[in-house]
């Protein structure tokens, strides 16, 4: 009885918080594009606006993608319905910024000059990696609706696991676009390396074994602390 009462009294509070988190994530994800727009129209986008806009949208897309990857690991350690829909939402925003990033590069920067773009893409590994990652994100975005989820059944999960491949390709895309050498760790590599470490860490949290072990550990800690609480209350 008392348990039921508790869950009743917590529910509205929880769903309020859930709404706040939901709207917070929407606002947080929309702010960068608004700032970009304001900077662009007030001539505040550096001396080289198009390149800056390309880099900024790329940065935001990558940050959102890493946050998307972080949702599931957070749920491993802390089961909550507060983050309901968060993974899909952040993932779609990451895809949105990727599209803006590509639009700026292909249309605003190179004016769809395929004579220059096609040889460039074929020459540069970082562009090939970026485009493969985009295709993965595109497939995921299209199939992100419930209808596809049901239709693809098991394959949906398989397809959406490719997000890790996409993340790794995007980080390589980022690292190789910097002036430097990733094999010898020379040049502008602090940020790509940081993203790389975070992504690999999140990826390592994913395998089932790790998840089960983590869940077991968390439960053990909880049960120990509840036992201690019980003892205290006695």
């Amino acid at each position: 009885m008392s348990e039921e009462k508790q869950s009743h009294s917590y529910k509205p509070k929880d769903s309020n918080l859930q709404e706040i988190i939901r709207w917070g994530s929407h606002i947080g994800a929309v702010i960068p594009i608004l700032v970009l727009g304001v900077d662009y129209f007030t001539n505040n986008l550096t001396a080289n606006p198009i390149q800056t806009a390309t880099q900024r949208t790329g940065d935001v897309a990558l940050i959102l993608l890493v946050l998307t990857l972080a949702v599931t690991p957070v749920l491993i350690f802390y089961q909550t319905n507060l983050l309901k829909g968060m993974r899909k939402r952040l993932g779609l925003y990451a895809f949105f910024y990727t599209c803006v990033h590509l639009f700026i590069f292909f249309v605003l920067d190179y004016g769809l000059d395929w004579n220059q773009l096609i040889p460039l893409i074929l020459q540069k590994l970082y562009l090939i990696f970026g485009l493969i990652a985009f295709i993965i994100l595109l497939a995921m975005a299209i199939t992100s609706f419930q209808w596809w989820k049901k239709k693809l059944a098991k394959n949906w999960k398989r397809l959406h696991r490719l997000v890790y491949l996409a993340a790794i390709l995007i980080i390589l895309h980022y690292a190789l676009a910097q002036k430097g050498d990733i094999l010898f760790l020379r040049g502008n590599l602090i940020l790509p390396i940081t993203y790389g470490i975070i992504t690999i860490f999140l990826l390592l949290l994913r395998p089932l074994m790790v998840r089960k072990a983590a869940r077991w550990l968390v439960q053990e800690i909880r049960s120990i602390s509840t036992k201690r609480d019980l003892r205290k209350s006695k």
Partner: protein
Amino acid sequence: MIIKSIDPKTPKSSEITPEFEYINRRRFFGRAGAMVAAATLAACAPKLVPGTDLLPTDIPTYMDELGNKATNFTYIANYNNYYEFTTNKEAVAMVSAKFVTDPWSVEVGGLVNKPMTLGLEDFQKGYTQSERIYRHRCVEGWSMVIPWLGFSLSDLLKKVEPTSAAKYVSFETVFRPDQMVGQASSFYPWPYTEGLRMDEAMNDLTTLATGIYGKDLLPQNGAPIRLVVPWKYGFKSIKSIVKITLTDVEPPTFWDTIAPELYGFFSNVNPGQQNSIRSQVTERRIGENPRIPTLLYNGYDPKVGSLYTGMDLNVYY
């Protein structure tokens, strides 16, 4: 002739910008310097260095020999690749504001008969400074047109009398990590070094610059003295030089040491180059929008093309 002698009809930049405003700008810099700690903030919201907009901009008489208008000074002073300070181009002006350029001395030695150490006064008094409006092409795919004030490196080299064994000239930037915070990063082989072949160094276009738009160089532009090699990518134009050494072997250079597959010793501007990160086919001129075609040797082919006859630019990149 590319070296532009100052036409008496042309308004001098000092006439356009009253001296008091220039001094006032310095005071602004002092204040900006106090905010070096805010440099990280500047990285998030880059702001133009206050006061630089007081300097002449868009003066139609500032044009290169192909008729390209010189780039707005605000851009030249606020969009800088100077990794010794920060890799954030918009923050260099802020982070470099407190850089001390006086006193300064440059050691010229190596395979020469008359090694010397020169102070800034020696450069200003001993060499005729002329205005040289050159295109500046960055390997990242952007370019500017910059009215430098300077003299040919060959004027200096003739005075030190290179021996017959001298085949190359190597240059070194000051190493001062207390003032140049970027030099703390171990991802780069500090100090910055560059090099030229003897015939490249002796070419009239190769300039030692001490000013821009008729004024002393600002720290973010390589004060107090820097190299300008207009037919090569910008990174060859080494800044804040303290050492010039004549050698008989090809000297190591900063970017070639970091990524030899991307950046070579020659690094001539070449639209046909395929091994760099960005496309070299076109470039974006700062302050203008559509991309423009990149010219071989940055358009200085008539002056420097003969230096490379018979060389495959894809091998000697």
